[in-house]
């Protein structure tokens, strides 16, 4: 069988199957017969498994990404990563897809749509969906109670969408690089992010929060941020900063609230 005709999904399925057969004690030859993969492919899949576990078995996506007009070449990807690891544009809490598209166009003359950037985020594991917080208002769960007690009293007093923020920090498992991601969701689900090669420090959080205040400063309205993934009150620096803010409310998501997953 010519495996060149297989879709990547089908190919990966068979690679996984071959590894399972090998684990069950089946020889390379037999595994090759049963999966229709060539013997070297079976060996390669087995080797990947031994070196990197199950996640290393599928082949990396080949060719252009789905729904994307332009080929996202290695150099462009590299530039995007460098940007994400660097400071975002002034006054911004992080990089939005619009910011990144502008950056590519202005600095490197590369045309990439916002949707193209967002697809790339998805393929790199950087995409994050905002939590449907308002849906918690009527839930009779621990989460619902938390929303009513901790979030609603803040959010209900804020009229504008750009006063209500949510975000968090997480480690993104990436095959090539260390990624700690600080993400923020603003009005209409728009996402801003920064990436770090180490866990973010107090200054990183404060820069982002300061930018959120900045965004609503012209209207002089308070800002609330529901935040997950960092124990901010353990940092004296953050605590001191927060105590001086009268227009910024931080609402930490308690552990195991189940929002993250």
């Amino acid at each position, binding site marked *: 069988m010519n495996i060149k005709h297989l879709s990547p999904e089908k190919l990966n399925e068979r690679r996984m199957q071959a590894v*399972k057969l090998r*684990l*069950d*004690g089946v*020889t390379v030859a037999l595994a090759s017969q049963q999966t229709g993969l060539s013997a070297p492919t079976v060996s390669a899949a087995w080797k990947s498994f*031994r070196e990197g*576990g199950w996640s290393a078995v599928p082949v990396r996506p080949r060719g252009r990404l789905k729904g994307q007009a332009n080929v996202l070449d290695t150099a462009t990807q590299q530039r995007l990563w460098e940007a994400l690891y660097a400071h975002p544009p002034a006054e911004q809490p992080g990089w939005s897809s619009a910011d990144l598209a502008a950056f590519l166009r202005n600095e490197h003359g590369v045309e990439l749509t916002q949707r193209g950037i967002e697809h790339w985020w998805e393929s790199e594991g950087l995409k994050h969906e905002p939590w449907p917080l308002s849906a918690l208002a009527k839930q009779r769960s621990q989460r619902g109670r938390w929303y009513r007690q901790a979030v609603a009293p803040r959010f209900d007093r804020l009229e504008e969408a750009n006063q209500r923020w949510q975000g968090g920090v997480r480690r993104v498992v990436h095959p090539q690089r260390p990624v700690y991601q600080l993400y923020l969701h603003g009005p209409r689900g728009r996402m801003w992010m920064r990436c770090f090669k180490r866990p973010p420090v107090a200054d990183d959080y404060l820069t982002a929060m300061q930018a959120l205040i900045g965004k609503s400063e012209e209207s002089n309205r308070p800002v609330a941020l529901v935040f997950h993934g960092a124990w901010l009150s353990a940092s004296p620096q953050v605590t001191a900063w927060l105590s001086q803010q009268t227009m910024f409310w931080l609402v930490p998501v308690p552990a195991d609230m189940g929002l993250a997953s």
Partner: protein
Amino acid sequence: MSHSSDLIADDIEGYLKAHEHKGLLRFITCGSVDDGKSTLIGRLLFESKLLFEDQLAAIEADSKKYGTQGGEMDFALLVDGLAAEREQGITIDVAYRFFSTEKRKFIVADTPGHEQYTRNMVTGASTADAAILMVDARHGILTQTRRHSFLMSLMGMRHLVVAINKMDLVDYSKARFDQIVEEYRVFAKQLGLENITFIPMSALKGDNVIEHSAKMPWYHGTTLLGYLETVELDAEHLQRSPFRMPVQWVNRPNLDFRGFTGMVASGVVRPGDQIRVQPSGKTSTVSRIYTLDGDLEEAVAGQSITLLLEDEIDISRGDVISGVDEPAHTADQFETTLVWMHEAPLLPGRPYLMKLGTQTVSATVTDIKYQVNVNTLEHTASKQLDLNGIGICTLSLNRAVAFDAYKDNHDTGGFILIDRMTNNTVGAGMLHFALRRSQNIHMQHVDIDKQARALAKGQKPAVLWFTGLSGAGKSTIANLVEKKLFAHGQHTYLLDGDNVRHGLNRDLGFTDADRVENVRRVAETAKLMVDAGLIVMSAFISPFRSERQLARDLLEAGEFIEIFVDAPLDVVEARDPKGLYKKARRGELKNFTGIDSAYEAPETPDVHLKTSEMDAEAAADAVIAALRERGMIS
């Protein structure tokens, strides 16, 4: 073969359910690294995926560095590690390794084929249900194969696989395989080995280990793993034997609950069963089998249980509970096979502690019938057993114990011997049958006993046991003591080299074994004299603690008085009244205590005489004073 990864990933609860019902097989592998033993174990561990990636990565790195397989995965490296152990100065012995398949969990006793092989292999085999004997197809049956086979037959191994390995190096030849099988069968017959399975294999290439080999279509038997997954477990075989449970501990939380705890050694027990307790012979009925999670309907061999009985009979640790119809036997003298496991040799006549099931008694080897050479299987006469020596011996106990022949039940017929002084485990043995003497010769109870004789003499009989280096003054002081006692009207006798060496013990020399026997005879004689009501003085070097302990054990409490005639070696060597030290120093006298044979000084003598600080007269007075103090004389 392996933990099915699909099931783990998709339905972990289904997987757990399936794996709750696995059995447990323990086996031993015999052979050296050269036979591919480590490769085999490594492959079994690897294939059952009980290896983690950090371990795998280490092996892969090692394979490139030290491996013998051209950079390919060298499974042997998984289990060897012997070099490292040597460097750390650790005694190489039995290592236990674990793997499991969907049918069974396995515990592998892995023993190196060379050094200390007998002790280690016997230890590993004692808990194994089956043995895998590795044979290199190129070399066939070697001395080592015979040695290992003999040890397995000795240990009563019920299932044996002869894995004829490295078939890839003999072109997977059926003729070669058949030839080795034939040769082995002849040999196995001599040993009385049964239930042998032969498997042609290549551990390195994986032929017939887990999967049937395409290279050997002529072989229709089971694969090695197939064998291990189906061979009968000893615990299940033993369920068909009569019920036995050595009592470990009596559980008595309150007056209403008396539970007898122990592990069922064989058979099945249910409430309502009639039982007999050995050695007392008392009978009762099982009322309950208690567990924390509720009573059991039945318990089988291999379970640790708590039994409750209907009658209040006296049962304690060491007793064996049996089914009433086929109870355990009782005896105090046996024919046994002994395997010696310690650097200090077995000396007949020396008392050891014997642990059999949950009973601990004093045991003496009275006779080594012959020793077996593990390589040639020849029988040779022997006066002692050295480390790794195997002998057919007569064993005599200080009281009767409950037992079964080892071939019928390893748990009620296998025992260890413990040195009374060092507390080391020095030997292991198998009981074969009781010797009749013990049952026929009962101690004659006569009306005139020791007490009566002693009363007639108006004294308390005792042994004054003088011990010390040659020339320390034992005989001189003992003589003076006897004179003083005689003058006091006591009935006495002095045993010393002069009146014993030339008669009773003239057949004995000065080897360690002979010294033990010498002291044993003196002690027995002294015991008879004490029985006759005498105060006996014995003046012998008696260098070993264990023999003095033997003498003490022969007598009743308070009858044995150990007197340490203590003079430093340089003092006695300077005195040297008989010129013996000079001879010994010149090498004309062998095994001379203090020079080339050890003297084990008493740790807590009853009387301690430092003769470098007092003269003989004063020393004798000190002994008399000590006797007065004890109320031995008035």
